[in-house]
């Protein structure tokens, strides 16, 4: 039973990790906690549904949904956050919460408030079949796909951040925005890229969750967003590897908490782990000690 719980927790953790990297990158670059990120995750699922209902095959629908989510992420920044770049942090935070509520209700108007199933005919039948079975542990193909996609996206993301020019610019911005601008970096373009990248990954998480659980609803982004935020903090907000580790730790802690302690406390267990880490390691698992930017 423990092995099965670990498999379940790991799957959930990778999903959290995919959402958490979006939070952490945006925070790293502009120090904004983008609370509307959970809604991008939700929109990823619903956009895929809409593209499939237009008759597009699954891979095309997924790709288009990721692109559309990236565009919405960028739009979100331009409309809601860019005008407040010089304003106090609190203003942008409040706007983020406002955008979250707005997007949630927009989705309800477009797709209705009833939960919808992921279109079954679009998913190959074997996705729900067991891929591996050791004694009493079962891993389904869908879980294997989640592992593969999540790992591939994260490796890709790390390559972008460490090996490309735009990745270097992102890291420069995270260190000192003014100095980066003085060095000739187009700050807004880099921020746009950060939002696009994080949103596409968040959307992919939403798509895989709705396939895994075979359901989607307009409010699904809220709790997932909060958990991913906790994962980002746990790993050290601003740190991309930290967000990945934080997601996995949180997913496993939550699953074991629900399985062995008591199920109504599952969210409590998740937050307790986060609080303990913050008390004993304020910068998070992999975060750097915070240096004063001023």
């Amino acid at each position, binding site marked *: *039973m423990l092995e099965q719980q670990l498999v379940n927790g790991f799957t959930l953790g990778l999903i959290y990790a995919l959402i958490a990297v979006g939070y952490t990158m945006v925070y790293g670059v502009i120090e904004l906690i983008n609370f509307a990120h959970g809604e991008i995750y939700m929109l990823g699922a619903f956009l895929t549904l809409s593209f499939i209902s237009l008759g597009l095959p699954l891979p095309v629908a997924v790709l288009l949904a990721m692109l559309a989510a990236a565009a919405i992420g960028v739009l979100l920044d331009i409309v809601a956050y860019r005008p407040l770049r010089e304003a106090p942090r609190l203003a942008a935070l409040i706007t983020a919460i406002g955008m979250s509520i707005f997007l949630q209700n927009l989705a309800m108007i477009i797709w209705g408030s009833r939960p919808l199933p992921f279109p079954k005919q679009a998913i190959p039948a074997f996705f729900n079949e067991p891929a591996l079975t050791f004694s009493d542990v079962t891993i389904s193909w869908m879980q294997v796909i989640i592992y593969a996609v999540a790992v591939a996206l994260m490796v890709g993301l790390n390559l972008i951040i460490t090996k490309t020019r735009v990745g270097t610019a992102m890291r420069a911005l995270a260190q000192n925005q003014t100095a980066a601008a003085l060095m000739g970096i187009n700050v807004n373009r880099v921020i746009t890229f950060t939002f696009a990248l994080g949103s596409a990954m968040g959307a992919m998480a939403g798509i895989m969750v709705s396939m895994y*659980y075979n359901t989607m*609803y307009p409010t699904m982004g809220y709790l997932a967003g909060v958990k991913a935020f906790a994962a980002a903090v746990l790993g050290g907000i601003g740190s991309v590897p930290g967000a990945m580790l934080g997601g996995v730790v949180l997913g496993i802690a939550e699953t074991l908490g629900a399985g*062995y302690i008591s199920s109504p406390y599952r969210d409590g267990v998740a937050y307790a782990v986060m609080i303990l880490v913050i008390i004993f390691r304020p910068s998070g698992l992999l975060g750097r000690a915070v240096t004063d930017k001023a």
Partner: protein
Amino acid sequence: MFGRKLTRSTLFAAALALGLAAGPAAAADTIKIAVPSPFTGSAAGYGENVKAGVMLKLEEINAAGGINGKKLEAVYLDEQCEPREAATVSSSIVNDPDIVGIVGHLCSSAHLAGLPAYVREGIAAITPTATNITISSKSKDDAGKAWSFRNVYRDDFQGKFLADYTDKVLGLKKVAVFYENNDYGIGLKDAFIKEAKTLGLTIVGEEAYKKGDQDYTPQLTKIKGAAPEAMFIAGYYPEGALIADQSKKIGLNIPKMGADGFDNADYVKLGGAAVENTYLTAPFLVETAGADAKKFIDAFKAKYNRDVDWMSANAYDATGIMAEAIAKAGADRTKIRDYLAGLSSPEKGYKGVTGVNYFDANGDCLKPAYVKVVKDGKFVPAPKQMN
């Protein structure tokens, strides 16, 4: 610049004038009822079902000339199934003199939060869906008059009924219980377990979940270890479908039991093959419904392009009962309550699409429960009923 300002203020004035002109004219020949339910938030889907039933009944009433020549109008108030919001909404209802009665609330927790204001200020509410047992004792004022009525049975009735059914009809003895951690789920679970213990059933696992959870595998993995023969899921259909789906995926393929919270075509749509062999209680069966009910079922399908669910059917009847009370007793809050209290036996009851609706002194209704089962992707009447 001046020109632009002028145009804007002209438009504003015109809009204002239009609004003012439309307002009082509409108020004079309408009678208002309040429909407080969740229309946003995680329970909005159910609110949509209730609204669908209310709207259909209102259309019928108004197309037939309204009530004594006046149109019946519903004021939809969103309380998100939150007790806090419900308390706010309830005070706005009692303070609006144009509102004569209430169809709602949807959730038991919300209904319980609104109830004190309705009892204190004297306005009758019919809830089509709130099944929690504590409503019975909180529906009455100091003089012992009930102000809250419901045309749905109580949780303890359903919980007990399902335990009996599991034992006597299905003959299953080892049962796991999975419940939603709110008034509805806990009420059902407690009644089920109490009856199960009297019958000598073994409860092999008791797990809770929260509305809106997506991942149930930790609890299910634990339940699987105890090898139950059946699983009672005390909650609503979206979570129920996920639980069924995930239990099938981990190889726990056993019959499932559910209460009226499962009675929605979306349960099968969301759960697919995994929800086969789910037994659930329902206030009425389409298959055995009378001619009026068939007409309603067809009208519902034509208007909304989906199969009717029991929430819509009960909301349709609750609206009908309220409309009849207004028509017979007049648009007066106290007289409406007295009329409703007078529907006290099957003979005096209101004949709706869900059967005869009548209330006891607590405002509770007595309706038979039917059992449906999911077979080949469809709800069908269970081969054995238990009445």
